[in-house]
């Protein structure tokens, strides 16, 4: 059952990455690799959170780092810069529910200005959800960018035909 759960998670992440990637007009040759990176990254985060009890922020960072390293490895063969592969692959990890709850609790706070304790509850939810959303998005970007700094010679010559 564990394997089936993880595989399903990977499958849906791959479809989501292909679709969100299509908005930014990637080269056709990049789609299979974007899908593979998103599947591995999201399944890794899912596994870490479900079975290793990691929190969403650190699990996202680890998964984003894996996606970044993967794009360094896979981009060379199809002459694509790392960002072309990893930005679409990161999108399925955007913390959408937290972002939604941030907006929802802000609205509910503004609707309950007259009732102080209810208002405080919504304000608390607003900060909780906003903090999680911002940390996860920041860590996703940082985790995937880290390999560029670790291996900058390789990262800067991904689109070169001649092997240096």
């Amino acid at each position: 059952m564990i394997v089936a759960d993880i595989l399903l998670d990977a499958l849906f992440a791959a479809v989501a990455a292909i679709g969100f990637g299509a908005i930014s007009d990637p080269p056709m040759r990049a789609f299979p690799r974007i899908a593979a990176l998103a599947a591995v990254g999201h399944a890794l985060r899912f596994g870490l959170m479900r079975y290793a009890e990691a929190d969403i922020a650190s699990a996202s960072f680890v998964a984003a780092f894996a996606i970044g390293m993967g794009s360094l490895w896979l981009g060379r063969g199809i002459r694509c810069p790392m960002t072309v592969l990893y930005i679409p692959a990161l999108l399925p990890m955007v913390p959408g529910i937290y972002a939604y709850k941030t907006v929802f609790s802000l609205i509910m706070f503004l609707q309950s200005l007259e009732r102080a304790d209810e208002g405080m509850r919504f304000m608390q939810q607003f900060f909780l959800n906003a903090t999680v959303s911002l940390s996860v998005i920041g860590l996703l970007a940082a985790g995937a960018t880290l390999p560029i700094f670790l291996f900058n010679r390789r990262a800067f010559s991904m689109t070169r035909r001649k092997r240096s």
Partner: protein
Amino acid sequence: MKTKRELTDILGFVAEYATYQLGSGVHTSRVVRNARRIGEALGVDVRLSSFQKSTILTVLDSETGEAETRVVAIPALPISFERNSDLSALSWDALDEALPLDEIRRRYRALVEKPRMDPIFTLLVVGLANASFCRLFGGDWTAVGIVFTATLVGFAVKQRMTAHGINHFLVFVASAFVASLCATAALRFDCTAEIALATSPLFLVPGVPLINGVIDIVEGHVLIGVSRLVNAMLLVVCIAVGLSATLLMVKDSLL
């Protein structure tokens, strides 16, 4: 050694090449490296610094000491990863094959005139993507179906409004509103309506400027990085405004 005319020609091309990339969502340090590489291939030194709306370029012939500088506006183009890859590859080809300016320019024209992805195909895959996203968040199959439909409508609104050249902030507010309004259909069924509502406007999340902003800042291009992030945050606020309009209508069914 370059004549004044040759130097002006090179500057004209590099300016167009660099601003095209900045306009289509390439992070700053890559544009700088690509432009300098093209300069190296043509035997001149290229220096550039960029803001959100304009770029300052200098081309220097180190043999004669002659230099020319220009300030160029960055065009607002749709984001394109294909052009990002192709134009980066062009700079390496120019250097490795020692291409002359005319040949580089010919290849550049061919690359930027390549057709973009078919809008109907994009619409369908975006619908599928957002539906999968709903499933990832734990939505049931009814919610997945509703999110698919809501995304098709919302993304079609975005495509049509963008094609009419309407201000992109308004486009984001309207698309988020329409997509989430369609997703409120889920409230009439026994399903995970809140997840459907939460997922429906997420196809609008400006992932590329957000991540480019972070990359620019950590690579030291702080000014343009912050500008990109401010722009991306404004778009996120627009999504929130569109979603709020829907939520204000249905909030009582959600509590």
